[in-house]
């Protein structure tokens, strides 16, 4: 069980999250934002348009995952925090991007939309159930530029393929969702275990990266051991450089440079923490360059 005081020390204040809203990203490969807005109006949803991405925050009692629009792939149910890493990687037509831990595919499909279904995304995952979800979302969103692979993320570098852009949305505790069940189940032992896996994934991603290439590292975890500690590891052990993120990120703060007696490299402060609230999940994002 995670202690609320731990988060108070990280954020400098108490954090609370009550999930009252649906948040969606428009699949502009299939429908325009305006057209989807008209549909939401006709359904009398109470909603607000996000001004920095094609997305909406919606208040309704209807289960949006059980609507015709969702089934037809007109939108993706995705937290706004999770829409930020694809914007930072700045996915463009003709890019060849590796999405190392891609399932369930929210960011994969978002990048494909940004790329206009051109270029290539190698969307990798390993577990059967996770691949099934990834393939289902790629299908529903009509994504033609994705190649789904089933490979160990930590050993992906053995393929010999190299990329200029890599998204490493690492498997994590998920404490940023502030789901009470997750907070209850999370232990320091679990955090440590995931932190080790995340470092192995960073090693693999660095080996897959071309000189001057970029890795966007993200998690939906609040834990410094899964975030700042790993970025410090990437700087000191893998020779990667942390760059400032050139985007105004809502509800964010600088990452920590110290935690429980450990002092991290100063450049770790260029990473961003998204503070959880009723709309945004807690998130960590860092831009690493080789």
């Amino acid at each position, binding site marked *: 069980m995670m202690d609320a005081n731990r988060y108070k020390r990280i954020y400098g204040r108490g954090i609370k999250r009550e999930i009252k809203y649906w948040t969606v990203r428009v699949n502009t490969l299939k429908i325009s934002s305006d057209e989807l807005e008209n549909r939401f109006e006709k359904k009398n949803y109470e909603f607000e348009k996000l001004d920095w991405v094609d997305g909406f925050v919606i208040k309704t009692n209807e289960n949006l995952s059980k609507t015709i629009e969702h089934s*037809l792939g007109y939108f993706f149910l995705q937290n706004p925090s999770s829409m930020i890493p694809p914007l930072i990687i700045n996915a463009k037509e003709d890019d060849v991007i590796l999405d190392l831990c891609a399932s369930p595919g929210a960011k994969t499909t978002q990048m494909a939309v940004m790329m206009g279904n051109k270029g*290539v995304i*190698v969307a990798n995952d390993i577990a059967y159930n996770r691949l099934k979800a990834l*393939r289902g979302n790629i299908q529903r969103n009509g994504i*033609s*530029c994705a190649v789904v*692979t089933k490979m160990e993320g930590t050993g992906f570098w053995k393929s010999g*393929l190299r990329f200029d852009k890599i998204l490493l949305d690492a498997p994590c505790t998920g404490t940023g969702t502030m789901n009470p069940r997750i907070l209850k189940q999370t232990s320091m032992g679990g955090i440590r275990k995931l932190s080790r896996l995340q470092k192995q994934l960073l090693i693999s991603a660095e080996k897959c990266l071309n000189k001057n290439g970029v890795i966007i590292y993200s998690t939906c975890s609040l834990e410094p051991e899964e975030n700042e500690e790993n970025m410090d590891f990437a700087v000191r052990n893998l020779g990667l450089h942390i760059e400032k993120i050139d985007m105004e990120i809502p509800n964010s703060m600088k990452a920590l440079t110290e935690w429980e007696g450990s002092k991290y490299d100063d450049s770790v402060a260029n990473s961003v923490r998204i503070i959880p609230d009723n709309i945004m999940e807690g998130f960590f994002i860092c831009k690493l360059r080789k």
Partner: protein
Amino acid sequence: MQAKEMKILNRRGIEEIERIVERNYGAKLNLDCYVVLIVGVEKKIWLASREILKIELEKLSINSIGFYFGKLKRNDKIHLSTEGSQIVGRFAKKNIVELGEESAENFMKGMDVKNMSRIDCEPHNFVLVRSGKDFLGCSLLTENELQNLLPKSRRILT
């Protein structure tokens, strides 16, 4: 999708798919912007962006490429996926059924539908299912009803 079962179609193979689509739905498609793959003995057709040829696919353990477009059937027929029906639907002139709001909801729940308008439909063929501007998928039209072939993963189950 197993990479070893997958075959990339050449221009002639693609023209054959375009011909079958036109014959069944009156839609002139140009699939040149895609790599068209045919997979397995079931002859499932997948579409992928041409740029995927830029990477060395043989170095990867591939699970799938692009999205599923449809399946070739006997007698030059083709059963399209939801995404296939959305691509073809924009240009289709025949074998289309139009559903009202209530029938569309029932169709999305996985039910067979009787109440529909038919646009140049041949019975015992696959038809595109439309409701307003939306193409909901592709199903089989019999004499009296539309047999629901919507995959479970796309149904709206309450």
